[in-house]
Protein backbone atom coordinates (compact mmCIF):
# COMPACT_ATOMS: atom_id res chain seq x y z
CA UNK A 1 0.00 0.00 0.00
CA UNK A 2 2.52 2.64 1.07
CA UNK A 3 4.59 2.83 -2.16
CA UNK A 4 1.37 3.05 -4.15
CA UNK A 5 0.02 5.81 -1.95
CA UNK A 6 3.25 7.79 -2.11
CA UNK A 7 3.27 7.56 -5.89
CA UNK A 8 -0.37 8.63 -5.99
CA UNK A 9 0.19 11.68 -3.76
CA UNK A 10 3.24 12.67 -5.81
CA UNK A 11 1.49 12.24 -9.14
CA UNK A 12 -1.66 14.14 -8.06
CA UNK A 13 0.00 16.93 -6.09
CA UNK A 14 -1.44 19.59 -8.40
CA UNK A 15 -4.89 18.00 -8.61
CA UNK A 16 -7.98 18.51 -6.40
CA UNK A 17 -7.13 15.38 -4.45
CA UNK A 18 -6.40 14.58 -0.81
CA UNK A 19 -5.22 11.39 0.82
CA UNK A 20 -6.28 11.36 4.48
CA UNK A 21 -4.93 8.74 6.86
CA UNK A 22 -6.77 7.60 9.98
CA UNK A 23 -3.92 6.06 11.90
CA UNK A 24 -4.24 3.34 14.55
CA UNK A 25 -0.57 2.92 15.51
CA UNK A 26 -0.88 4.38 19.00
CA UNK A 27 0.72 7.38 20.70
CA UNK A 28 1.02 10.50 18.49
CA UNK A 29 4.71 10.97 19.43
CA UNK A 30 5.57 7.47 18.21
CA UNK A 31 3.42 7.82 15.11
CA UNK A 32 5.11 11.14 14.33
CA UNK A 33 8.55 9.47 14.38
CA UNK A 34 7.32 6.73 12.07
CA UNK A 35 5.75 9.27 9.66
CA UNK A 36 9.06 11.13 9.44
CA UNK A 37 11.06 7.92 8.95
CA UNK A 38 8.68 6.66 6.29
CA UNK A 39 8.48 10.09 4.63
CA UNK A 40 4.68 10.14 4.85
CA UNK A 41 3.57 13.67 4.17
CA UNK A 42 -0.20 13.52 3.84
CA UNK A 43 -2.74 14.52 6.49
CA UNK A 44 -3.26 12.13 9.37
CA UNK A 45 -5.80 11.67 12.15
CA UNK A 46 -4.40 10.24 15.37
CA UNK A 47 -7.00 7.63 16.32
CA UNK A 48 -5.07 5.78 19.03
CA UNK A 49 -5.22 2.00 18.71
CA UNK A 50 -7.44 -0.22 16.58
CA UNK A 51 -10.30 0.48 19.01
CA UNK A 52 -9.92 4.23 18.49
CA UNK A 53 -13.02 6.44 18.34
CA UNK A 54 -13.11 6.91 14.55
CA UNK A 55 -12.30 3.27 13.74
CA UNK A 56 -15.04 2.20 16.18
CA UNK A 57 -17.59 4.73 14.89
CA UNK A 58 -16.96 3.70 11.28
CA UNK A 59 -16.98 0.03 12.31
CA UNK A 60 -13.56 -0.68 10.83
CA UNK A 61 -12.83 -4.39 11.19
CA UNK A 62 -9.71 -4.68 9.03
CA UNK A 63 -6.73 -2.49 8.17
CA UNK A 64 -6.34 -0.90 5.74
CA UNK A 65 -9.95 0.05 5.10
CA UNK A 66 -10.47 2.48 2.24
CA UNK A 67 -13.28 4.90 1.39
CA UNK A 68 -13.08 7.00 -1.75
CA UNK A 69 -15.23 10.14 -1.81
CA UNK A 70 -16.07 12.40 -4.73
CA UNK A 71 -15.76 16.18 -4.58
CA UNK A 72 -19.26 16.41 -3.06
CA UNK A 73 -18.22 14.13 -0.24
CA UNK A 74 -20.26 11.18 -1.47
CA UNK A 75 -18.92 7.69 -0.79
CA UNK A 76 -18.30 6.27 -4.26
CA UNK A 77 -15.99 3.31 -3.63
CA UNK A 78 -15.01 1.18 -0.66
CA UNK A 79 -12.23 -1.29 0.06
CA UNK A 80 -10.20 -1.01 -3.11
CA UNK A 81 -6.45 -1.60 -3.19
CA UNK A 82 -3.48 -0.47 -5.25
CA UNK A 83 -4.29 -0.37 -9.01
CA UNK A 84 -8.06 -0.54 -8.44
CA UNK A 85 -7.83 2.26 -5.91
CA UNK A 86 -5.80 4.40 -8.29
CA UNK A 87 -8.23 3.77 -11.13
CA UNK A 88 -11.16 4.86 -8.95
CA UNK A 89 -9.39 8.09 -7.96
CA UNK A 90 -8.58 8.83 -11.61
CA UNK A 91 -12.19 8.24 -12.56
CA UNK A 92 -13.49 10.69 -9.94
CA UNK A 93 -10.92 13.31 -10.90
CA UNK A 94 -11.92 12.98 -14.55
CA UNK A 95 -15.58 13.31 -13.54
CA UNK A 96 -14.80 16.47 -11.57
CA UNK A 97 -12.79 17.96 -14.43
CA UNK A 98 -15.64 17.23 -16.86
CA UNK A 99 -18.15 18.92 -14.52
CA UNK A 100 -15.98 21.99 -14.14
CA UNK A 101 -15.42 22.12 -17.88
CA UNK A 102 -19.19 21.86 -18.45
CA UNK A 103 -19.94 24.67 -16.01
CA UNK A 104 -17.57 27.05 -17.74
Amino acid at each position, binding site marked *: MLPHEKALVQRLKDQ*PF*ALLGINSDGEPEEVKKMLVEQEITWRQ*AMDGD*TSGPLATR*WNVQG*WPTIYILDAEGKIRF*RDLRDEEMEKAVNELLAELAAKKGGAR
Partner: protein
Amino acid sequence: MRSLLSFLLVGALAGLPVAAQTAAAAKAQVAPEQAKLDALVARFKKHQADCLAEYQKATSDEARNAALTRREGREFLPEFQALADEFPGTDAAGNALLWTLRIGIIERPAAQAVVARLMEEHMESELLSGLPGELAGRAAVIGQADVQRVLGELVEFSPHASVQGQALFVLGSQGLESKDAAARAKARAALERVVAEFGELENFRGKLGDQAGGMLFKLDKLQLGMVAPDFEATDENGVKWKLSDYKGKVVLLDFWGYW
Protein backbone atom coordinates in the same frame (compact mmCIF):
# COMPACT_ATOMS: atom_id res chain seq x y z
CA MET B 1 -20.36 -9.93 44.03
CA ARG B 2 -17.29 -12.02 44.74
CA SER B 3 -15.44 -9.18 46.48
CA LEU B 4 -18.51 -8.41 48.58
CA LEU B 5 -18.63 -12.07 49.60
CA SER B 6 -14.96 -12.10 50.64
CA PHE B 7 -15.51 -8.88 52.55
CA LEU B 8 -18.38 -10.45 54.49
CA LEU B 9 -16.32 -13.56 55.19
CA VAL B 10 -13.36 -11.55 56.44
CA GLY B 11 -15.74 -9.60 58.65
CA ALA B 12 -17.26 -12.78 60.07
CA LEU B 13 -13.82 -14.12 60.88
CA ALA B 14 -12.72 -11.02 62.75
CA GLY B 15 -12.96 -12.71 66.14
CA LEU B 16 -10.59 -15.59 65.35
CA PRO B 17 -6.87 -15.70 66.25
CA VAL B 18 -4.76 -14.18 63.47
CA ALA B 19 -3.16 -17.42 62.18
CA ALA B 20 -6.43 -19.33 62.06
CA GLN B 21 -8.11 -16.30 60.57
CA THR B 22 -5.60 -16.02 57.71
CA ALA B 23 -5.72 -19.72 56.90
CA ALA B 24 -9.51 -19.81 57.08
CA ALA B 25 -9.81 -16.67 54.97
CA ALA B 26 -7.45 -18.07 52.35
CA LYS B 27 -9.44 -21.27 52.31
CA ALA B 28 -12.71 -19.43 52.06
CA GLN B 29 -11.48 -17.23 49.24
CA VAL B 30 -10.22 -19.95 46.90
CA ALA B 31 -12.27 -23.11 46.66
CA PRO B 32 -10.22 -26.23 45.81
CA GLU B 33 -11.77 -26.57 42.35
CA GLN B 34 -10.99 -22.91 41.65
CA ALA B 35 -7.37 -23.38 42.79
CA LYS B 36 -7.10 -26.38 40.49
CA LEU B 37 -8.53 -24.43 37.57
CA ASP B 38 -6.21 -21.47 38.21
CA ALA B 39 -3.21 -23.81 38.16
CA LEU B 40 -4.38 -25.49 34.96
CA VAL B 41 -5.01 -22.15 33.23
CA ALA B 42 -1.58 -20.92 34.32
CA ARG B 43 0.03 -24.06 32.84
CA PHE B 44 -1.93 -23.67 29.61
CA LYS B 45 -0.92 -20.02 29.26
CA LYS B 46 2.72 -20.85 29.93
CA HIS B 47 2.55 -23.58 27.29
CA GLN B 48 1.19 -21.05 24.79
CA ALA B 49 3.85 -18.49 25.67
CA ASP B 50 6.59 -21.12 25.31
CA CYS B 51 5.30 -22.17 21.91
CA LEU B 52 5.13 -18.55 20.79
CA ALA B 53 8.77 -18.08 21.80
CA GLU B 54 9.61 -21.25 19.90
CA TYR B 55 7.74 -19.91 16.86
CA GLN B 56 9.67 -16.65 16.98
CA LYS B 57 13.01 -18.45 17.21
CA ALA B 58 12.20 -20.98 14.47
CA THR B 59 14.22 -20.68 11.28
CA SER B 60 12.13 -22.81 8.88
CA ASP B 61 8.45 -22.79 7.87
CA GLU B 62 8.24 -26.37 9.08
CA ALA B 63 9.44 -25.47 12.56
CA ARG B 64 7.15 -22.46 12.66
CA ASN B 65 4.10 -24.53 11.70
CA ALA B 66 5.01 -27.18 14.26
CA ALA B 67 5.21 -24.52 16.98
CA LEU B 68 1.82 -23.09 15.99
CA THR B 69 0.21 -26.53 16.06
CA ARG B 70 1.73 -27.30 19.44
CA ARG B 71 0.50 -23.93 20.69
CA GLU B 72 -3.13 -25.08 20.29
CA GLY B 73 -2.55 -27.25 23.34
CA ARG B 74 -4.52 -30.33 22.24
CA GLU B 75 -3.36 -32.21 25.35
CA PHE B 76 -5.01 -29.67 27.65
CA LEU B 77 -8.51 -30.39 26.34
CA PRO B 78 -9.06 -33.60 28.38
CA GLU B 79 -7.65 -31.88 31.46
CA PHE B 80 -10.20 -29.06 31.32
CA GLN B 81 -12.94 -31.60 30.63
CA ALA B 82 -11.85 -33.78 33.58
CA LEU B 83 -11.90 -30.79 35.89
CA ALA B 84 -15.45 -29.95 34.77
CA ASP B 85 -16.48 -33.58 35.42
CA GLU B 86 -14.87 -33.65 38.85
CA PHE B 87 -16.70 -30.58 40.19
CA PRO B 88 -19.99 -30.46 38.26
CA GLY B 89 -22.14 -27.37 38.64
CA THR B 90 -19.46 -25.19 40.21
CA ASP B 91 -18.31 -21.95 38.59
CA ALA B 92 -14.86 -23.50 38.18
CA ALA B 93 -16.44 -26.32 36.17
CA GLY B 94 -18.33 -23.82 34.03
CA ASN B 95 -15.18 -21.82 33.40
CA ALA B 96 -13.27 -25.00 32.57
CA LEU B 97 -15.95 -25.78 29.96
CA LEU B 98 -15.54 -22.26 28.53
CA TRP B 99 -11.80 -22.92 28.27
CA THR B 100 -12.41 -26.05 26.21
CA LEU B 101 -14.12 -23.83 23.62
CA ARG B 102 -11.02 -21.61 23.48
CA ILE B 103 -8.68 -24.46 22.64
CA GLY B 104 -8.31 -24.41 18.88
CA ILE B 105 -8.92 -28.02 18.01
CA ILE B 106 -12.26 -28.88 19.68
CA GLU B 107 -14.55 -30.64 17.19
CA ARG B 108 -18.27 -30.28 16.54
CA PRO B 109 -19.78 -33.04 18.73
CA ALA B 110 -17.55 -32.15 21.67
CA ALA B 111 -18.20 -28.43 21.26
CA GLN B 112 -21.96 -28.96 21.05
CA ALA B 113 -21.88 -31.14 24.15
CA VAL B 114 -19.95 -28.47 26.05
CA VAL B 115 -22.43 -25.78 25.04
CA ALA B 116 -25.41 -27.97 25.97
CA ARG B 117 -23.88 -28.66 29.36
CA LEU B 118 -23.15 -24.98 30.02
CA MET B 119 -26.75 -24.13 29.19
CA GLU B 120 -28.14 -26.92 31.35
CA GLU B 121 -25.95 -26.62 34.43
CA HIS B 122 -24.89 -22.96 34.50
CA MET B 123 -27.85 -20.91 33.26
CA GLU B 124 -28.12 -19.17 36.64
CA SER B 125 -24.45 -18.17 36.66
CA GLU B 126 -23.02 -14.94 35.35
CA LEU B 127 -20.04 -16.87 33.98
CA LEU B 128 -22.13 -17.41 30.85
CA SER B 129 -21.35 -13.80 29.93
CA GLY B 130 -18.17 -15.34 28.48
CA LEU B 131 -20.11 -17.74 26.27
CA PRO B 132 -21.38 -15.45 23.46
CA GLY B 133 -17.84 -14.34 22.60
CA GLU B 134 -16.67 -17.94 22.39
CA LEU B 135 -19.70 -18.86 20.28
CA ALA B 136 -18.86 -16.02 17.88
CA GLY B 137 -15.38 -17.43 17.43
CA ARG B 138 -16.59 -21.02 17.14
CA ALA B 139 -19.67 -20.56 14.93
CA ALA B 140 -18.08 -22.52 12.07
CA VAL B 141 -17.38 -25.50 14.35
CA ILE B 142 -20.66 -25.50 16.29
CA GLY B 143 -22.92 -24.55 13.38
CA GLN B 144 -24.53 -21.17 12.74
CA ALA B 145 -28.10 -22.32 13.47
CA ASP B 146 -27.15 -23.79 16.85
CA VAL B 147 -25.20 -20.68 17.75
CA GLN B 148 -28.21 -18.48 16.97
CA ARG B 149 -30.51 -20.71 19.02
CA VAL B 150 -28.19 -20.74 22.03
CA LEU B 151 -27.73 -16.96 21.90
CA GLY B 152 -31.51 -16.52 21.78
CA GLU B 153 -31.90 -18.74 24.83
CA LEU B 154 -29.26 -16.78 26.72
CA VAL B 155 -31.16 -13.55 26.05
CA GLU B 156 -34.42 -15.15 27.16
CA PHE B 157 -33.41 -17.25 30.14
CA SER B 158 -30.31 -15.81 31.76
CA PRO B 159 -31.10 -13.73 34.83
CA HIS B 160 -27.98 -11.61 34.24
CA ALA B 161 -27.92 -8.40 32.18
CA SER B 162 -24.26 -9.03 31.28
CA VAL B 163 -25.15 -12.39 29.72
CA GLN B 164 -28.15 -10.99 27.86
CA GLY B 165 -26.19 -8.02 26.55
CA GLN B 166 -23.23 -10.06 25.32
CA ALA B 167 -25.61 -12.51 23.62
CA LEU B 168 -27.58 -9.73 21.92
CA PHE B 169 -24.35 -8.16 20.70
CA VAL B 170 -23.16 -11.36 19.02
CA LEU B 171 -26.66 -12.07 17.64
CA GLY B 172 -26.76 -8.59 16.15
CA SER B 173 -23.27 -8.49 14.74
CA GLN B 174 -23.67 -11.90 13.08
CA GLY B 175 -27.17 -11.39 11.69
CA LEU B 176 -26.27 -8.09 10.07
CA GLU B 177 -24.50 -9.97 7.27
CA SER B 178 -27.47 -12.26 6.59
CA LYS B 179 -28.99 -12.50 3.10
CA ASP B 180 -32.44 -12.74 4.69
CA ALA B 181 -34.12 -9.37 5.26
CA ALA B 182 -36.06 -10.57 8.31
CA ALA B 183 -32.83 -11.82 9.91
CA ARG B 184 -31.17 -8.49 9.21
CA ALA B 185 -34.08 -6.62 10.78
CA LYS B 186 -33.80 -8.81 13.87
CA ALA B 187 -30.08 -8.15 14.02
CA ARG B 188 -30.67 -4.42 13.84
CA ALA B 189 -33.20 -4.61 16.67
CA ALA B 190 -30.69 -6.58 18.76
CA LEU B 191 -27.94 -3.99 18.19
CA GLU B 192 -30.35 -1.15 19.00
CA ARG B 193 -31.12 -2.87 22.30
CA VAL B 194 -27.40 -3.21 23.00
CA VAL B 195 -26.94 0.53 22.47
CA ALA B 196 -29.99 1.43 24.57
CA GLU B 197 -29.69 -1.06 27.43
CA PHE B 198 -26.26 -2.71 27.51
CA GLY B 199 -23.90 -0.06 26.14
CA GLU B 200 -21.53 -0.09 29.11
CA LEU B 201 -20.73 -3.82 28.88
CA GLU B 202 -17.33 -4.58 27.36
CA ASN B 203 -15.56 -7.18 25.29
CA PHE B 204 -11.90 -7.34 24.23
CA ARG B 205 -12.44 -4.45 21.80
CA GLY B 206 -14.07 -2.09 24.27
CA LYS B 207 -17.62 -1.01 25.05
CA LEU B 208 -20.40 -2.95 23.36
CA GLY B 209 -22.51 0.19 22.92
CA ASP B 210 -19.76 1.90 20.89
CA GLN B 211 -19.23 -1.15 18.71
CA ALA B 212 -22.93 -1.81 18.13
CA GLY B 213 -23.34 1.93 17.44
CA GLY B 214 -20.57 1.69 14.82
CA MET B 215 -22.28 -1.23 13.10
CA LEU B 216 -25.56 0.67 12.88
CA PHE B 217 -23.72 3.83 11.79
CA LYS B 218 -22.04 1.96 8.94
CA LEU B 219 -25.35 0.45 7.88
CA ASP B 220 -27.17 3.80 7.91
CA LYS B 221 -24.50 6.33 6.96
CA LEU B 222 -21.59 4.68 5.17
CA GLN B 223 -23.20 3.05 2.16
CA LEU B 224 -22.17 3.79 -1.42
CA GLY B 225 -23.78 7.00 -2.68
CA MET B 226 -24.24 8.52 0.78
CA VAL B 227 -22.47 11.72 1.78
CA ALA B 228 -19.77 10.69 4.23
CA PRO B 229 -20.58 11.97 7.73
CA ASP B 230 -18.25 14.75 8.80
CA PHE B 231 -15.79 14.19 11.65
CA GLU B 232 -13.19 16.17 13.49
CA ALA B 233 -9.70 14.80 13.98
CA THR B 234 -6.31 15.82 15.33
CA ASP B 235 -3.08 15.25 13.41
CA GLU B 236 0.32 14.21 14.81
CA ASN B 237 1.19 17.85 15.56
CA GLY B 238 -2.01 18.47 17.50
CA VAL B 239 -3.61 20.41 14.64
CA LYS B 240 -7.36 19.87 14.33
CA TRP B 241 -8.97 19.24 10.97
CA LYS B 242 -12.34 18.14 9.62
CA LEU B 243 -13.33 15.91 6.75
CA SER B 244 -15.51 18.75 5.44
CA ASP B 245 -12.33 20.89 5.05
CA TYR B 246 -11.68 18.77 1.96
CA LYS B 247 -14.98 19.33 0.20
CA GLY B 248 -14.38 20.07 -3.48
CA LYS B 249 -11.58 17.51 -3.61
CA VAL B 250 -11.56 13.83 -4.36
CA VAL B 251 -10.74 12.21 -1.02
CA LEU B 252 -9.12 8.89 -0.32
CA LEU B 253 -9.83 8.03 3.30
CA ASP B 254 -7.44 5.38 4.55
CA PHE B 255 -7.86 3.69 7.94
CA TRP B 256 -4.38 2.27 8.36
CA GLY B 257 -1.58 1.21 10.65
CA TYR B 258 2.12 0.75 9.99
CA TRP B 259 2.51 -1.80 12.84
